[in-house]
């Protein structure tokens, strides 16, 4: 270890290997150009995307893929806005046809106020998707029991919410997140709820494999600068996790030696 960033510190999901541990969303930006610049500044290799109807009245409208290019980023299509397993399967079949990728993000929501996942329906949807050959990264609650059920059902990654989507509240249950990280044999990503760089650092210090965020960057006053901050935060947290933190002590321990005092 020479103290430089770990060049070979990679992580893998569904047979694909990545160097960046920061996945960014592509929603809520001023425009697609700012969105692309933020994704670049974040050093992201994966971006989440949504599937929606094309605008028939103006087919010349700018398209995401013209700015955030699928040959530069791995697209992770989501099922945002889906409330049933069938909706999610239908959406991701279209995503697979549009992009040709089988790596997807499943989110089945319960309630438009808090957007927390409906875990019973999420687990059912996961089984439907796996039966159709999808590789599924699953947005979930921070419940270690359901996280285990998802893994047992074949989830490619477990992605607990730190806090409600877009709330920027940071990690609400460090203990549960720690339990999920400890028990999981597939990658664990904090997905949703990150508000600022320290939230990303804490997630990575806990031992998460990666962090997924959208609003924390898109709604910053300067999104490009926040994207850069998040890139550094994720690297810092990861390096601290790998380095292994010092033990906590009850009392002070001087850094300058007592011996030789004049």
């Amino acid at each position: 270890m020479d103290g430089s960033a770990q060049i070979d510190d990679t992580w893998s999901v569904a047979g694909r290997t990545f160097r960046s541990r920061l996945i960014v969303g592509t929603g809520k930006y001023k425009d697609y150009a700012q969105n692309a610049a933020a994704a670049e500044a974040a050093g992201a290799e994966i971006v989440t995307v949504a599937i929606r109807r094309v605008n028939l009245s103006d087919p010349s409208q700018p398209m995401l893929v013209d700015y955030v290019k699928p040959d530069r980023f791995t697209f992770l299509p989501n099922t945002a806005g889906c409330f049933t397993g069938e909706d999610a399967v239908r959406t991701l079949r279209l995503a697979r046809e549009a992009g040709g990728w089988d790596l997807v993000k499943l989110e089945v929501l319960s309630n438009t106020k808090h957007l927390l996942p409906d875990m019973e329906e999420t687990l059912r949807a996961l089984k439907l998707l796996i039966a159709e050959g999808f590789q599924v990264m699953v947005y979930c609650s921070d419940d270690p029991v359901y996280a285990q059920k998802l893994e047992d059902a074949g989830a490619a990654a477990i992605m607990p919410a730190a806090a409600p989507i877009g709330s920027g509240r940071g990690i609400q249950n460090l203990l549960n997140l720690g339990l999920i990280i400890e028990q999981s044999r597939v990658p664990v990503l904090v997905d949703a709820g990150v508000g600022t760089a320290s939230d990303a650092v804490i997630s990575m210090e806990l031992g998460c494999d990666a962090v997924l965020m959208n609003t924390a960057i898109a709604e910053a006053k300067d999104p490009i600068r926040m994207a850069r901050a998040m890139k550094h935060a994720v690297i810092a947290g990861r390096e601290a996790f790998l380095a292994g933190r010092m033990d906590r002590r009850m009392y002070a321990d001087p850094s300058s030696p007592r011996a030789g005092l004049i």
Partner: protein
Amino acid sequence: MATGATQLQLIVNGEDRAFDGVADVAGLVRALGLDVRKVAVERNLEIVPRSTYDKTKLTDGDRIEIVHFIGGG
């Protein structure tokens, strides 16, 4: 009978639309001015693979969804 026979009534992305001279999915995507490489099409809840657009005939009342990737989290 000659021209009227070619008009096709479809429900595209939830809207009732009529098309002249459109017979298949490839023709529909073209008529709408969309880039075939950037969209995915569903016909009556079934995915239409891109490679079969010109073989997939359309009939009156077909429910078509045409989607693409947009920004999302």
